[in-house]
């Protein structure tokens, strides 16, 4: 019976063909716009390092003077001072591992004079950064742990830079210039696709770091600091100087500018780590630091960050609302179209009932028809959302004055199997939902009246 119903449902699509096309178009267009926005929202909420997003914790400690309101949320707070970062690195903590980093801007050039230098976003950190944040190596490796402190002139570069400066060859041992300084390439990263640059708290979906060097080397080269600096009291006046010139002053200051991460794999270790932080702050308070009574600190994981950052606000939230409303309008239209389509078949349905079809059989036939329309609407909707996502991606590229390359943000506008499955579920589910009333109407018509002689 199911096969017969399926045959009838399929045939019915070709009766009153214009209504079928209209119905598919209504579902498809509404779904296309809905899935464009939903895919963007979905990709924005994607965790950048899978399960590790729950174990990588970002530490903030409020070392400000007593003036000013207390920070209530992690996103209000600053990073930590270089001094605290160093002390915590040397402390015995519950973390599986800890690291810290800061950002710089540097002009990179090679010995090949034909290649134009590139202005690069650089990451300054420790050798365990790569393992901690799952950065894959194509060639070589990170610098040694000893090199963290010895300012050994070595650097890890991105695959893109390796392709540009060394034509994709294994460049380990080759030289690059960072500004006026020369370093040796010690490692080349493979394609490191993360949907957001979460580790430097910019959450930039497009930006990428191309050069990675140790903290000690960056200090020796006195590379510019491009992180946000929380300098208060006497340090506030010197923030500009700290950013570009006096690095030793900055390292020894009470400015919070170092991004500190701890890998904590269990609730117990988190608890224990927090206790360690509280002990550290109390101990430092005795030296006149952390003057605030509340001793505020935040220990938040990547998943928490993404939950906040991934939320659609402002223009995006409006877009989301409009796409939902538009889809609802399309579905309401679909009810009318289905009613018209099914009403035109009332006589045939009455005849089938007279000849022995049960109401449930007629209902099944029409549910199948509606489901097929849903599937076809889903296909149209997916095709439209594919085009819509390309359009939205191009708008972002255009809005950035082409400083962002389309391929760098492609992941934020990409349909994946989850979204494709979602699209079909929404399409089939919603068409069945809007089809319920027309189907109920058509199944509960009075056959005798329809079959009366005309």
């Amino acid at each position: 019976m199911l096969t017969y119903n399926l045959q009838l449902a399929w045939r019915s699509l070709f009766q009153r063909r214009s209504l079928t096309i209209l119905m598919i178009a209504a579902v498809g267009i509404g779904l296309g716009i809905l899935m464009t926005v939903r895919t963007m929202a979905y990709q924005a909420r994607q965790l950048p390092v899978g399960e590790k997003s729950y174990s990588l914790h970002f530490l903030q400690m409020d070392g400000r003077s007593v003036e000013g309101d207390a920070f209530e949320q992690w996103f209000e707070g600053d990073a930590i001072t270089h001094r605290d970062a160093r002390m915590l690195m040397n402390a015995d903590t519950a973390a599986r591992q800890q690291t810290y980093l800061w950002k710089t801007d540097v002009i990179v050039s090679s010995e090949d004079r034909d290649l134009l230098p590139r202005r690069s976003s650089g990451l300054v950190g420790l050798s365990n950064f790569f393992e901690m944040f799952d950065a894959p190596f194509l060639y070589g490796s990170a610098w040694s742990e000893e090199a963290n402190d010895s300012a050994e002139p070595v650097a890890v570069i991105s695959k893109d830079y390796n392709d540009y400066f060394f034509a994709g060859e294994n460049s380990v041992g080759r030289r690059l210039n960072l500004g006026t300084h020369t370093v040796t390439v010690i490692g080349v990263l493979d394609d490191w696709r993360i949907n957001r640059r979460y580790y430097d708290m910019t959450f930039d979906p497009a930006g990428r770091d191309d050069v990675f060097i140790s903290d000690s080397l960056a200090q020796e080269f006195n590379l510019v600091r491009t992180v946000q600096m929380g300098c208060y009291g006497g340090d506030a006046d010197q923030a500009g100087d700290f950013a570009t010139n006096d690095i030793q002053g900055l390292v020894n200051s009470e400015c919070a500018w170092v991004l500190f991460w701890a890998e904590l794999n269990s609730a117990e270790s988190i608890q224990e780590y927090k206790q360690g932080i509280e002990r550290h702050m109390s101990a430092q308070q005795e030296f006149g630091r952390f003057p605030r009574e509340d001793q505020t600190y935040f220990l938040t994981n990547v998943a928490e960050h993404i939950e906040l950052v991934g939320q659609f606000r402002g223009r995006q939230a409006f877009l989301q609302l409009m796409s939902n409303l538009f889809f609802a309008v399309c579905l309401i239209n679909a009810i009318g179209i289905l009613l018209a389509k099914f009403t035109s078949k009332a006589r045939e349905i009455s005849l089938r009932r007279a000849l022995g079809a049960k109401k449930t059989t007629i209902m099944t036939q029409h549910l199948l028809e509606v489901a097929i329309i849903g599937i076809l609407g889903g296909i149209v909707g997916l095709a439209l959302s594919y085009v819509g996502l390309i359009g939205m991606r191009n708008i972002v590229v255009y809005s950035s004055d082409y400083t962002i390359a389309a391929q760098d943000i492609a992941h934020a506008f990409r349909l994946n199997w989850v979204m494709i499955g979602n699209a079909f579920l929404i399409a089939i589910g919603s068409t069945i939902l809007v089809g319920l009333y027309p189907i109920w109407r058509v199944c509960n018509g009075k056959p005798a009246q329809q079959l009366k002689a005309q």
Partner: protein
Amino acid sequence: MLKMNDVSKIYRTELVETHALRNVNLEIQEGEFVSVTGPSGSGKTTFLNLTGLLESFEHGEYFFDGQNVRGLHDAQLSRIRNEKIGFVFQSFNLIPDLPIYENVEVPLRYRGMGAKERRGRIEHALSTVGLTSRLGHLPTQLSGGQQQRVAIARALAGEPRILLADEPTGNLDSVMARQVMDLLHEINDNGTTIIMVTHDPELASRAQRNIRIFDGEVSVVQPLNTDVLVDREEKQSAHV
């Protein structure tokens, strides 16, 4: 075959209550050919629809093939319609998009019959009405008389106990009408009970019994001439 005791049918709207049938008391034996006559709007079609379980009724009892149909739910009524009742309508009611074969197939599909058995029954039914060569034609490619014969074949394919015909010749010219009537009599001769609504007194007179409905009431029921049934049984026995 069927028996009605005080059956009434009322159509209600917000303003009006219309008694389509009032206290119908009737019994029809298996194998009878009964004509139903009456003026327009008298309740003939309502009576036929009610007999064919396409309409519910408010009062009384209706026994179909010994079973009280009052209170049966949709699936049970559908099954009875599918297995025991054949319908022939004035306007043929063939499905225009389906070829003749598939039109005749419809009731058999809802019976869940296998493809081989369906084919056998369809070919037999169409040969009975003389349309074997038109299996692949669409209804619109046939004349009115042929379409009505297809409708009869559709009713016959299910081998019903009773065939309900609502003005089966109403849309046909006299020659075709005679052919269709001959066919119905042939079917009745083979033992199928037939109830036929008609306006035509001549066609009505060819039935074994006539039921006259006036203003929703069965006003005249000719007594059953049981000789006809006995004669036919004897003929059938002799044939066997």
